[in-house]
């Protein structure tokens, strides 16, 4: 009898990580994932394992993010950076169509639906939850966003179970992590003991096929145990968002004086919404050239914190920062349920870290709950 083996989990040695990228590339996928750039771990092109943030980690606090060296060589030893995967699916800027005057008529050209086959490397459980939320938004209703749908269909998700949490993480509260449960093609857990390697599981047919091609050894029970210990470690989060009754709490508090208090700190700069992996707002802008013979329509990321976003005849609907923050937080944590059947928050903590003045949505929700307790 050899050592006990886990028939569904395999071991990818660190030295063979590049074989995974090669296998994905040979199937036509462009690998994108975490890489160190501009003092952060951002998402960019990944050619080989050397592009990954090996030996780096990230410290988070409200309004603060710093990368620093780890004492080991972990490849995925960080949490989440400033970028979200949405930038590949719901692109920041896109030309929707163009018109060209041809005599007395206008000719319209629609750019072709561009499908880049992406392999997302290092997707976290909270990020899968965010992708699934955006799937419902862009493809789940009567109107399907064709570019999103076509690109998303081809995405190969290589997820990574978190084995640590940042002080801004609250996926446990939102029930979205730290362990990947579905929505993944291949799921890795990076372990440093008994040796530095990845415990790999296939979660789809595509994943099975890639995994089989790598011809890996089965994981031993000490590998699986180390992986489980890592995920348990990530479960210990200091930040919480009490979700019981949260939807109604916000609904009841539309006139709370707390919105003014938040507005005294909020910059209405839109960073939270643009860093958020589920925020999906965009605007369209029509442009013409000087001759008036050529016109284009562009779609761009927009935000409920921007003045023009709620502009209608007669002016902006939400003219104050208090009204804009109330709109964002109430939508995210309350009316999102009515619209899309879930919370709009996955507990990744980006809005907390990347707010330039450290406004903390979990803290604001807590204060709102406390204020009610004091009143009653």
């Amino acid at each position, binding site marked *: 009898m050899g050592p006990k083996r886990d028939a569904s989990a395999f071991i990818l040695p660190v030295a063979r990580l590049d074989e995974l990228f090669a296998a994905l590339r040979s199937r036509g996928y462009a690998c994108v994932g975490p890489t160190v750039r501009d003092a952060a771990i951002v998402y960019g092109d990944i050619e080989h394992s050397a592009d990954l943030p090996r030996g780096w980690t990230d410290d988070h606090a409200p*309004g603060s993010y710093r990368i620093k060296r780890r004492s080991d060589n972990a490849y995925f030893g960080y949490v989440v950076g400033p*970028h979200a995967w949405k930038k590949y699916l719901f692109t*920041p800027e896109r030309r929707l169509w163009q018109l060209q005057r041809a005599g007395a008529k206008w000719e319209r050209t629609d750019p072709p639906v561009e499908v880049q086959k992406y392999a997302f490397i290092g997707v976290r459980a909270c990020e899968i939850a965010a992708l699934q939320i955006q799937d419902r938004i862009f493809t789940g209703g009567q109107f399907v966003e064709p570019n999103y749908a076509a690109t998303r269909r081809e995405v190969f998700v290589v997820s990574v179970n978190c084995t640590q949490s940042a002080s801004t993480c609250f996926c446990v509260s939102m029930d979205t992590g730290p362990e990947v449960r579905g929505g993944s093609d291949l799921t890795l857990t990076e372990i440093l003991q008994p040796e530095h390697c990845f415990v790999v599981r296939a979660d789809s047919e595509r994943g099975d096929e890639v995994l089989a091609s790598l011809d890996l050894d089965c994981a031993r029970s000490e590998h699986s145990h180390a992986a489980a210990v890592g995920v348990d470690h990530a479960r210990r989060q200091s930040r919480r968002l009490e979700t019981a009754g949260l939807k109604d709490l916000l609904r009841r508090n539309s006139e709370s004086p707390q919105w003014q208090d938040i507005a*005294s700190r909020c910059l209405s700069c839109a960073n939270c919404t*643009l860093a958020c992996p589920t925020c999906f707002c965009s605007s369209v*802008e029509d442009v013409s050239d000087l001759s008036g013979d050529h016109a284009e329509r562009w779609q761009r990321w927009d*935000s409920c914190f921007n003045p*023009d976003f709620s502009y209608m005849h007669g002016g902006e609907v939400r003219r104050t920062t208090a009204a804009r923050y109330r709109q964002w937080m109430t939508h995210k944590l309350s009316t999102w349920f009515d619209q899309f059947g879930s919370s709009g928050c996955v507990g990744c903590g980006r809005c907390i870290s990347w707010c*330039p003045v450290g406004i903390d949505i979990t803290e604001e929700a807590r204060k709102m709950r406390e204020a009610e307790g004091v009143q009653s």
Partner: protein
Amino acid sequence: MGKPRLAVWKFASCDGCQLSLLDCEDELLAVAGAVEIAYFPEASSDMQPGPYDVSLVEGSITTAHDAERIREIRRQSGAVITIGACATAGGIQALRNFADVEEFTRAVYATPSFISTLDTSTPIADHIRVDFELRGCPINKHQLLETINAFINRRRPNIPAHSVCVECKRRGTVCVTVARGAACLGPVTHAGCGALCPSYDRGCFGCYGPKELANTESLAAWARDKLGVADKDIQRLHHNFNAWSEPFRSEGDRHG
């Protein structure tokens, strides 16, 4: 109907903004095709008399003579569009508004008595009605073309009024305040530059002036208390090209 007649005027300024029009290069022929450039001394000595359909005004009002001249331009013009921080906010020269101009002239000029100037540098809109203000130090040439285009085609210019942060996020630039602790005016500054400075790892100088709902008080308090920026540096950051624009003006005053 002939082509719309365009005039370009200079007041107290460095010429950088009107040069943006000449800097259009590829698009300049299209501009010349769409409008009659009737008055533009920087570009042509052929200066046609008014009236003009659209006047672009660069620079601030710093002399009694200019305060009169701008009124005449208003009378001669269909639409008046001010271009750049000098014309929309008083410019860097509005730093005189916080000090004693006579002291400056004594320090700078051999014969200060030759200098005839007002105590203040003020934006064009303090003197006449302005139809559109294009921000920036200098302005962005693409925004200038868009503005001219919009006025010619009688539509609203696509000049977004949101923060510089939106431009950083769209281009994927990592926030220099959050990731490096840099003092950056991006969250309170009007977009338009394409978030140039943060893309070179440094904070925004606020060249495009305050955005709407600019909460400078909150940002400055964070810079002082959390990032450890000295009060005098916070003042310098606000008292810059758009020093005379509220709320940059009073925010700078608070940190003297």
